[in-house]
């Protein structure tokens, strides 16, 4: 009994009180900022260095949906025009809003339609389906229930059955072997329902996109409500993305 009290005191106050303004480690790679200076003529070193074809050169555009937030483009640029900042607010409801250009100051994301906000604004139950995820995204989604992030305080919860859920959260590129289970799970979620894609694999396939073992038809056939970029996305990217989506 005394040990339990001692342990509780040791826990202290680990929660991130203000999820919209938290401090992340200095080297954390969040939103990339592309400097306004022009690129050297004909240079495409950043695009060539990118292992997941997330960058087009001249003018430089970085697609955060494809981006795995590795250091390669920042390293490759001879003029040091690309810099990954600490800004973790990078989720968006629109795929096009994930394209970063020289003019991008922040990632825009609109809230969901009023009906969705009315239904889910104070209580959002989500079913997580790992369709080929490597466990990186899954670990970060599990971290959302820890004492640092506690998404339960916002009424957001992962549930054990699609029947209890308001939407599904997909990780992984969608393997052939998970294509059917994913479809069945989605069909079991009652309407109205939403689809959230978490991580570079789910949004664009990551390094697996050309693999014969990947089958992304489900994503092409269904409307996606929220994109959460990262590899894996930081838990705060997920929380702030969802909060903006449900209008909080």
């Amino acid at each position, binding site marked *: 009994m005394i040990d339990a009290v001692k*342990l509780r005191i040791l826990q202290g106050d680990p929660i991130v009180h203000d999820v919209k303004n938290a401090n992340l480690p200095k080297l*954390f790679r969040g939103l990339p900022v592309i400097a306004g200076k022009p690129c050297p003529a004909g240079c495409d070193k950043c695009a060539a260095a990118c292992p997941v074809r997330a960058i087009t050169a001249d003018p430089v555009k970085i697609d955060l949906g494809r981006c795995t937030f590795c250091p390669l483009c920042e390293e490759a640029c001879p003029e040091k025009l690309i810099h990954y900042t600490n800004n973790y607010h990078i989720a968006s409801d629109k795929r096009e809003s994930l394209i970063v250009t020289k003019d991008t100051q922040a990632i825009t994301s609109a809230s969901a339609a009023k009906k969705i906000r009315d239904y889910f604004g104070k209580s959002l139950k989500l079913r997580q389906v790992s369709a080929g995820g490597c466990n990186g995204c*899954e670990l970060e989604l599990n971290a959302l229930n*820890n004492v640092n992030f506690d998404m339960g305080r916002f009424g957001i919860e992962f549930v054990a059955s699609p029947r209890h859920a308001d939407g599904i959260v997909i990780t992984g590129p969608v393997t052939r072997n998970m294509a059917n*289970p994913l479809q069945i799970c989605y069909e079991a979620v009652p309407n109205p329902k939403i689809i959230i894609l978490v991580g570079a694999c789910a949004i664009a396939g990551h390094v697996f996109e050309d693999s014969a073992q990947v089958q992304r038809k489900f994503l092409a056939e269904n409307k996606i409500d929220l994109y959460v970029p990262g590899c894996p996305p930081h838990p705060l990217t997920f929380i702030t993305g969802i909060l903006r989506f449900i209008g909080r």
Partner: protein
Amino acid sequence: MSSLQIQNNQCFRLDEIIFSDKNDFLKTVAKHLAGGFRMIGLFPPDKRNPGKIIAVLANSGSSELCIAGGEFPADKLEFDSLAASFPQTNYFECELSENYGYTPLNHPWLRPVRKQNVIAGGKPYQFYKLEGDEVHEVAVGPIHAGVIEPGHFRFQCHGELVYNLEINLGYQHRGVEALFREAGPGRGIMLAESIAGDTVIGHTYAHCNVIESLSNTQISLRAQVIRSIAEELERIAMHLSGLGGVSNDIGLALAASSYGRLRTLVINSLADLSGSRFGRGLFVYGGVRFDFDRENINNIIKKLNTVRSDVKVINDFLFSSTGALVRFEKTGIVSQDSALKIGMVGLAARSCGIELDTRINYPYGAYRYFPVSQITLSTGDVFARSRLRALEIDESLRFIFEQIENLPDGGIKTAVGAAEPESGVVAITEGWRGEVVHIAVTDEQGRVAQYKIKDPSFNNWYGLSLALRKTEISDFPLCNKSFDLSYAGHDL
């Protein structure tokens, strides 16, 4: 009856392998297995020529590694299965059959490994069924209740007791090995980091060892120590996750949330070093990208000091809780005999009293100069697998504290030359679950032509099946968490 002796991370020429005829090959392999060797690979080094295969064998006790080669007629890829005498070859034979069309004759239990229904010829795989009155079958998955990767578990039960558990995976199969063959040089590291997202360091370390060995690149001692520190940080983080998992599954929320808080400190330490909570972006061919400096050393030491003192309090709380011990002890037992027979590796094997740790048996990188201790427990139950995590955390913390304030001078990146043509290498690292094996073979131009990966989960999933025998089904989540195996690492 001969085999090529090699070392961990030592480049060898393909023409050094002697390919015997199939009978001599099987005799050689059987002789080694009977003599205490473990199989760690069974596949054709040249994908275009599936008739020529190699068996990679390891005797960890003597630190020997060898390769036996065998040649099979291209139109008759079959052999008498060794699995009845040596259960540890069972799954390797299934994999060879699935990937290259071999027929292991009289195989006791041929089943799909990753490409579901391939072996069953397109028909759904038939699970082993218990017959009798009052027996029932429980199917779980592929999608599970929690936030976790998919896999299928089929229990044959009589009342609460599980008589057999079959584990059918492959749902996460992304075609990683094929991508290593096809991917250009720019993608290799990112692919290695994504094999199992919780074992970024373990797999990427093995992959970098492959590329560096093939190109005869010696990386700096400072880079080696940084890599090992990262490896140990990953080990601590995932062991804390495991302890949090078993605490959660017995309903001890205070312990679970406390381990969770400490895990955050450890992964944020990896982020202080590399920008990523999982160490992505840290490794480059030839060394590491990020270095320690006074600032991040101070930040990391501050966090790890908290981890070191607090984990002691949480461990004392958990392991002296009668409620926890009643759940942990004698639950999900794997006997040492079974573990040896099926070729279990890593933490699960060490919980059964088997001395198996790549850092000690086949030391690589900084572990050659700064060794870690061999720690084993003997009861092979959930208690042993949990307690061993606590002991390994202590040992990893000791290693990091010793190294981080005594980093060798020098640079962190060495230029990497061209890879040797028509050569191969076996690179083994000790990931936090156990032995990670990457084997690569190059073609005439030094490009990677064949790439074989063995995650420790490939060996250990069957250990979980055995642990559930004569165990109550309600203890399944606890047993599963006590192993904490990788689905993606197995499926590739």
